[in-house]
């Protein structure tokens, strides 16, 4: 089996390095960061923290190098999905492509370029320590299921899930992966921008009554949209919030990391996604709308003269 991971930042590297542990899987990595790609080709892809392993991975910055693949795993930040899949798509002419990205709307973009698409959601997180080295900050499950409008077969979904699981990251194949995706979406949309706007770690956001109440108000809007879409959530996002406060007190949400580095955030795929699906379903989401506008404003502030 040949798999290409598209976008090997933290999450993409976790998938690539774990898959590379499986004998029958040949792993490719497509990324635009040259130092990272060179380091991976020179020394292999190393994981530290919650995983301690070295993966043999073929990395490239040139999509023309990628041989035909059975599977693709798109792990870019959601705002880069469109460009990344447009470049990488020729490698997946006969294959199926999964998204393991944050938010909603990525599968729709991938489906514009490839025949068979897999809806995916993943909980493990990490950060790039240096080129070629990624720390696995948290472990957790990954869920995959056919993307309804352009579905991969259940057989394909199961084969990819088995391979990732064999590599050491537990992955569950589902007929309907929307529940898992929306559970994580609602969790992320309720916590990430609060961390980003207040600069507080996840634990502090949950500890302060003011911010904790705001998280619940955002969760409630997300649940109402999921409900209108007929999606049954995997678990209560509000309980996930408290669970995360216990296991990841010091965690700085990825959106907070983006804000501190003055990088564009994934707000469009998170709160923006809830707002647009809400609009489609006639469910008002005023808080998510306001939060999305504030984050966009904050992004804009970096281009103000100062």
């Amino acid at each position, binding site marked *: 089996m040949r798999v290409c991971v598209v976008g090997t930042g933290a999450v993409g590297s976790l998938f690539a390095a774990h898959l590379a542990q499986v004998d029958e899987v040949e792993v490719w990595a497509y990324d635009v960061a040259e130092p990272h790609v060179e380091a991976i080709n020179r020394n292999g892809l190393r994981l530290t923290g919650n995983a301690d392993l070295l993966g043999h991975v073929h990395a490239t910055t040139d999509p023309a190098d990628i041989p035909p693949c059975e599977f693709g795993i798109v792990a870019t930040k959601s705002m880069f999905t469109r460009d990344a899949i447009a470049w990488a798509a020729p490698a997946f002419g006969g294959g199926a492509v999964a998204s393991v990205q944050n938010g909603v709307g990525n599968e729709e973009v991938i489906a514009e370029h490839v025949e068979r698409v897999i809806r995916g959601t993943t909980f493990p997180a990490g950060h790039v320590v240096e080129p070629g080295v990624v720390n696995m900050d948290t472990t957790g499950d990954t869920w995959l299921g056919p993307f309804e409008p352009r579905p991969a077969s259940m057989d394909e979904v199961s084969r990819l899930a088995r391979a990732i699981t064999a590599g050491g990251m537990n992955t569950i194949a589902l007929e309907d992966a929307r529940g898992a995706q929306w559970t994580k979406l609602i969790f992320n949309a309720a916590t990430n921008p609060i961390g980003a706007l207040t600069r507080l770690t996840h634990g502090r956001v949950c500890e302060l009554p003011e911010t904790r109440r705001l998280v619940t108000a955002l969760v409630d809007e997300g649940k109402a949209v999921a409900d209108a879409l007929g999606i049954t959530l995997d678990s209560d996002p509000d309980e996930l919030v408290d669970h995360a406060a216990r296991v990841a007190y010091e965690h700085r949400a990825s959106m907070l990391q983006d804000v501190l580095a003055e990088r564009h955030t994934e707000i469009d795929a998170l709160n923006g996604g809830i707002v647009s699906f809400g609009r489609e379903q006639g469910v008002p989401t005023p808080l998510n709308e306001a939060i999305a506008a*504030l984050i966009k404003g904050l992004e804009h502030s970096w281009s*103000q003269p100062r």
Partner: protein
Amino acid sequence: MDAEAGPGTPGAVTLRRVCVIGGGTIGSLLAGHLSRVCEVWVLTRRAEHAERLEREGLRISGKSELVGRVRATSEVSELPAFDLGIVAVKATDLEQVAALLAGAAPDATMMTIQNGLGAENVVARHGDWPLISSVTFMSGTRHSDAHVEYELDTATWLGPWSGTRTSMAAVEAVARLINASGLRAEVFSDLVPAQWSKLIFNSAINSVAALTELPHVALFADEDALGPVVGALIDEGKAVAEAGGINLYEDPWEMNLLAVARGETNRSDYAHLPSMLEDVLAHRPTEVEFIAGAVVREAARRGVAVPLTAAVHRLIKGREASWELPRTRPAEVGV
């Protein structure tokens, strides 16, 4: 200068000596200008600030050019009796400063000029001075302890505070003095409608600026950017005012449009940093409890839902918490 507007104008109210409490931007603009028409004392927090004012005077540049001779001290006990006290400290420092003033200048009239709601009540708890409410629209930039630049030369509005028996004559005398000094003042018999217009404006603009770190720029009125959020916050504030039977003096959304238009056309590099954003950038406590927090409290009292104002209030409280020292986690204490 208006000859009739000087100190000692007939009308029973004599304003020979003014004490400005707080030498921030607004306090300095008032002290520097007023020193042209009466004796001015400045009460500062830091002794070196007072020493520098005594030594160098207070320079105003920009819309006015002057060096005001002022007296200054950081000790309340060193203040002589004064006729008018202008309390120009930040709302967050008001309680502490008003407590220091208790017993000082028993015959003075006191004027508050803080953002938001509630300053008069705080001062009234510490003395029975007649109180004048005010809201100011002037702005400036503080370059040093002894130099402030006067930027927006817009008016300060004054009115008698309903909680004390303040005469209109006293308010008019203060307004005449301020106008004579080169600043602009207007008198209102009831300032509440104007106070609420500015409260609602500040609750929306200052909160959004503090959270986005944007100065008050055109995006705040842009339908494809922050316009909807700013508009929704303003609408919540208006609903609270309406529930309280307050007819706003000015529409806060129109104030937003006007401020943005002035910012965009008057001077291309003009971009006003609302004070709450300055506080956030400097990691100081903000006035959020007196502004968005005041709207939330008044809304609760009147049974009006203000979910977005509550949200920005909570976010700013969270932001303030981010620059407190990290608290020890229960897990680190060990059980």
